[in-house]
């Protein structure tokens, strides 16, 4: 960064456009229909999950399939505490509980090599689901719980708030020295350790921080669903969908997961409500494979490549290589 020459035009784009966007979104419930408020809530939920997932996994390359565990912790926080305190406290507690859980699991598992970590996080979600089912049925003799309902507008504003915080956190994570350490770990963990990075701590902390947003989103979404059981709370699709969205959108740029999430939520909605309902999983799988095979850097990768080509063509000069991690 060169502080002596602040690029106003660039700053206006970096801060101005998102700011206008958020202001527009925050007035939306006043002029938009209730139907659209609900739809936008789902968009926000997936954006939060995809961006939060990318904070850790995008930079380090450790594929976490535990998103649904943290999201589920939030859901259960809402189910257990929703009646006894205001929503804001439940959101904070849900986020904090997810942080603690992710910290503990990170401490245990982040010693594992990449693929073992993915397997472990996958097993973790299923283990949670099984154990809570077992506990609810045999100990409490019930299946599922009610959650205090919140109005659509409340849910929307909470998600918008969490979204803004998540984006700011992701932005600063990427720009800070912490972000550089994370990317270095993703490229070569051993070299990062020998260059003075406390690799274990950086990984665990980031993993835990990214879980906060997932847990908080879980709290808010639970109040929309009113009735939850372990199958809803620890749904594996909540682990996979954000991964797919992030890969599809591209992780080299902060907007990649956002674009991926928006497009995918839309596709998901069209597919699950229309005539293609029965083919949803099939198309989901095909797109996942297609994205991995044909666009390893995601949509943003393709866009950046195109922009690069256009610039090269116009200027005839050399183009900086894209470094998508």
């Amino acid at each position: 960064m060169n502080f002596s020459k602040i690029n106003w035009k660039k700053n206006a784009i970096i801060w101005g456009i998102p700011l206008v966007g958020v202001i527009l979104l925050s007035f939306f419930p006043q002029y938009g229909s209730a139907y659209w408020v609900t739809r936008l809530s789902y968009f926000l939920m997936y954006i939060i999950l995809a961006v939060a997932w990318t904070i850790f996994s995008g930079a380090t390359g450790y594929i976490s399939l535990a998103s649904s565990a943290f999201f589920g912790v939030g859901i259960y926080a809402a189910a257990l505490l929703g009646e006894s305190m205001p929503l804001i406290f439940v959101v904070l507690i849900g986020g904090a509980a997810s942080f603690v859980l992710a910290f503990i699991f990170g401490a245990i598992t982040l010693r594992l090599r990449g693929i073992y970590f993915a397997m472990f996080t996958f097993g973790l979600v299923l283990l949670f689901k099984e154990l809570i089912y077992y506990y609810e049925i045999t100990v409490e003799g019930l299946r599922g719980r009610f959650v205090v309902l919140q109005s659509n507008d409340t849910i929307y504003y909470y998600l918008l708030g969490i979204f803004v915080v998540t984006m700011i956190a992701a932005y600063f994570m990427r720009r800070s020295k912490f972000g550089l350490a994370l990317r270095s770990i993703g490229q070569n963990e051993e070299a990062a350790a020998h260059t003075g990075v406390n690799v274990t701590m950086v990984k665990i902390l980031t993993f835990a921080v990214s879980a906060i947003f997932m847990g908080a989103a879980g709290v808010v979404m639970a109040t929309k669903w009113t009735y939850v059981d372990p199958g809803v709370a620890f749904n594996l699709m909540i682990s996979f969908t954000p991964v797919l969205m992030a890969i599809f959108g591209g992780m080299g740029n902060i907007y990649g997961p956002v674009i991926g999430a928006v497009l995918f939520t839309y596709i998901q909605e069209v597919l699950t409500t229309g005539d293609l309902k029965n083919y949803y999983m099939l198309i989901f799988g095909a797109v996942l494979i297609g994205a991995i095979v044909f666009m390893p850097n995601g949509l943003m990768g393709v866009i950046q490549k195109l922009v690069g080509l256009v610039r090269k063509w116009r200027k005839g000069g050399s183009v900086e290589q894209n470094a998508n991690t």
Partner: protein
Amino acid sequence: MEHFLSIFIGGLLIGGIYSLVSMGLSLQYGVAKVLNIAHGEFLMIGAFLTFVLQQNGVDPLLTVVIIAPLMFIVGFIIYRTIFTTIRLKASNPGVFESNALLAAFGLYFIVQNIGRLIWGTTPQSYSYLPGTVSLGGALFNDSRLVAAAFAIAVGAAFYLYLARARTGKAIRAAAQDPTTAGLMGVNINNTLALCFGFGAAMAGVAGALISVCYPISTTMGLGYTVIAIVVITLGGLGSIPGSFIGGFILGVIGTAVTSWDAGLSVASYYVIFVILLLVRPKGLFGK
């Protein structure tokens, strides 16, 4: 004591099938480096094809002659198209493993969805060899004994093939060091695809054998995938004999936990898996 013995024998019987399923995944992950989360879906397809053929009067054990080559071809083609491309594009083996895992999840969604579209979600079963045998003071269905014996025979035959045959040697060379094996004239893409195909074939055969003695459903796959993952972790990733023995160990443990509290059997697999990964990621028989 008799109760204990019956659990043990019951565990060995189901363990024979677990072994076969796990040896298939062991080839796919140990050699072809694809942690194939869709493994159980191939098993499900094998089970339902057997069911369909049985309904049309074919002996379920004979269906293996059709299912094994069919699954092999499907697996081979899938590897040669999807996974070879991913492998050649990946900058290092770690990137390949992660991307292959994600693609395998895609495969899981696709194959399961196809199964559901064709066969729905209602469990199915048919009767085959309804007699029983008394072993260690407990009664076991003939079908279970036959299925287990068949699974063990297929597993053992395959192991001998790997150890003796020329292709088997190429596979083991590729498992050790793909680059060097490639330099020595092994067609690496085809060898890895072969392993993936063999894995799919074994899953299909295991599915056929499961349908002989247990009810089947289109959602049965993931459970077997999880079992196979636990077994190959137990036996040491990539170790074929390890998976063979590991299958029996998990069969016995699973049967014991189920007899104590059926609600905890799946959870017990995860607990074993989690503890193994943390304490001994190389597996019990890993080098």
